[in-house]
């Protein structure tokens, strides 16, 4: 039986009737029509579906949409403010931290929390902080550079 949910997504409140089993990732992609969060696995491993729920990075494939009702979701689409890229988006671009781009939205949002928790992380802390996001293209080195560079800019 469908139930009503209300979620603030990228700053806009919306309400829908959903099956309880509808995963947040499917809600965001199929109902809301977003394309930033991606599906890369079904075991809560790859992190491609990462979004922020009330300011914390979570895997949107491992939560039912109904559990997010009444809460705030930020996806990659909502990260740029008034057309200005977030410093992490800018850093990923500058440092060539993406190739095929599939993991990138999740990677950036995980990095966002990483920097919230620890504004000037070491290389090891960055690598550890991103362990929940798989990238098959970059070997992660440019991603590490991007997070470092975004941190340095924020600290400057």
């Amino acid at each position, binding site marked *: 039986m469908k139930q009503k949910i209300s979620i603030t997504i990228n700053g806009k409140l919306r309400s829908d009737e959903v099956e309880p089993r509808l995963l947040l990732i499917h809600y965001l992609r199929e109902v809301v029509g977003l394309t930033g969060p991606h599906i890369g696995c079904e075991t809560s491993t790859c992190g491609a579906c990462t979004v922020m729920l009330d300011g914390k990075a979570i895997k949107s494939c491992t939560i039912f949409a109904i559990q997010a009702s009444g809460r705030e979701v930020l996806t990659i689409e909502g990260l740029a403010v008034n057309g200005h890229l977030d410093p992490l988006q800018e850093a990923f671009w500058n440092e*060539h931290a993406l190739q095929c781009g*599939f993991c990138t939205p999740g990677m950036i949002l995980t990095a966002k929390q990483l920097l919230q928790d620890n504004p000037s992380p070491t290389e090891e802390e960055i690598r550890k902080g991103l362990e929940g996001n798989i990238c098959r293209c970059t070997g*992660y080195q440019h991603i590490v550079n991007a997070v470092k560079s975004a941190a340095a800019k924020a600290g400057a």
Partner: protein
Amino acid sequence: MATTTVKPETLVGKRIRRREDPRLITGTATYVDDIKMPGMHHACIVRSPQAAARIKGLNIKPALDRPGVVAVFTGEDVKDVPSVPCVAQLPGLRQPHHHVLAQDRVYFVGHPVAVVVATDRYIAADAADAVEVDYEELPAVADPEKALAAGAPAIHPQWPDNTAFTFHQEGGDVEKAFREADVIVKQRITSQRLVPNAMETRGVVADWRAAERSLTLYSSSQAPHLLRSLLASIFGIPENRLRVVAPEVGGGFGSKIDIYAEDMLMTFVSQRINKPVKWVESRRENFLCTIHGRGHVDYYELAAKRDGTMLGLKLKIIQDLGAYLQLLTPAIPTLSVLMMPGLYKFKNISADVIGAFTNCVPTDAYRGAGRPEATHGIERMVDILAAELKMDPAELRLKNFPAPDEFPFATATGLAYDSGNYALPLKTALDEVGYADLRREQKQGREQGKLLGIGMSAYGEICAFGPTPATPTGGWESATVKIEPSGKVTIMTGASPHGQGEETTFAQIAADELGVDIDDVVVLHGDTSLVQYGIGTFGSRGTAIGGTALYYALQELKSKIKKFGATLLESDEVSLVGGSVVHEASGKSVSFSKIAAEAYRPMKLPPNTQPGLVATHFWEPPNFTFPFGAHVVVTEVDRDTGQIAIRRYVAVDDCGKLINPLIVSGQVHGGVAQGLGQALWEQAVYDDNGQLLTGEFTDYAIPRAHMMPWIESSHTETPSPVNPLGVKGVGEAGTIGCSPAVVNSVVDALSHLGVRHLDMPLTPEKIWKLIQAGGRA
């Protein structure tokens, strides 16, 4: 006439951030699963849980009865659909008919048995679960050597020896070389099955329009034109009514060159339901049903003189093919044969390949495709020989390289290596890592029980696939350049990049050649209705062949620009400066934008010249290119646990001229990650019943950020003479150079315990057990 503005600097060779990134970092790129169409249905595939079984019964009614389900198709419905194609041909090749849905038997776990079509993906998934299949289990065999053994169960009953083909090649006189040798070293070396695991799984949206008799197929493909041609011939749809679009493609690594059963099945379904239909692979399906890579058991024998001069190499490859032949499956081990001498001068080889069927998903091209296996083999054998001769492995390599003045170098396998200075990257990498100091540290450390290893590989690869006679898909590439009346430049490339950055590198080339701002250049690809015929992106060919096609198209346009300029300046004594035309005697010039406008509204046409500025070039390469390089890896082995830590990773690669060093370094890093994955963690493990035991990310270890070392990457630049850009290709280099360097390093760390060889992946328990046994294993 305006004064010429010449751009102050060229862009080729510069680290320029990518032009494809804005859509990717904002989540607005369109991958297959992002495509929605009015009336679109969703398909879910019922797959076999058995590796070998007879289908005794199939009941689709429980699925059909569910609300929202519009159709269920089974093997019977598709029995007349032609086989999933294999375009690689070898003499005597046995090719089983690869039905898009199983007929009376299944041959591997994941084999498609039925397809459920519904209005929603949740309903489709529920209905697929409701399909009842009654299997009679048959004996399975998942190991290629066991498959070839007498008495093994027949995978395809018509071929009880489970042999799809045998292939023999020789060069020189290998028997003589072995007779004259002082030393012969032998080793069995495996290269385990790997799962490519592009982060975007495969996906297809098929949209058949009956009234137009036309099909549009969106597929996450590396080679959309090839897919179109094959689908057209399979379904009898005229090629000009069949549009294939590879939208944003989330990685491929070879696994998306193939045409898959699902591409065909969705075409079939859309034709039958007369509606668009979408299928997106789950990760589980990706593990089970998308091609795997590698899958070699190799037997090597290397003959040499006591002074280290290598004389000849014998190789027997047992290739695990899986149950079917995908697009290029049988061709992959033949590439290993071509690459078997590595970078070394010896001219005597013999190779035998046996293609073995197994009850597993087919193998095919995965990053490096045959060359990593060959490089791993020869680079391991060189180290084994060095140990036998008690020579330094670097010295042994340097002794056997052809000198820079010996190029083009004819190999024992019939190739002509284009250009090279093979000693340079190796010496550079050894200097960089501090080789002599490390050897001293290793010696001292051993006295305290420390296990430090220094390993190297000197790799070569065959890239830029390739001359057409040697490439089953066709080997040229195409480019069209359109200079619009406003002076904006549109490039359409037949290569279909999916992460390699050609939207940037190609724009760099065009901006330099035409003297325009890079922001005025757009690169389009991946849509067969938009782009002239092309081959695709694989085998490190995008820039070396696609870029060269672009280069020549630009030259054609430049000569036309010059003609228009000459007409406008009323003089033949003009020259091109960037995209502008200059009459040096008078100092008068006409700008690129003026010529662009003039070309579409010419007051006076140059002689024998058509209006417009559009050029298309199809470039057929005269040869492959042969990148090379050296990787040196320092490892520390934890004696207590067998865990391996990488202390240094130094890569010196030579991929010819660099168009964009930032992008090149990304290719190297990513390649190394996949090579390291093979060396240390990744393996598709099938049990004796053909069940894939490592079939999810929770079991199959993909390198994560915290598992990767810092890669110290640099380049030597030996231009390729094969193309005017001097580029060789870099997509696969990191992968090819990596695994032998890592394994050589760990073997080196344990060599004083008597360890001579280790098969991949170097799992800690394997290492620990060896140490426990004092190295003798």
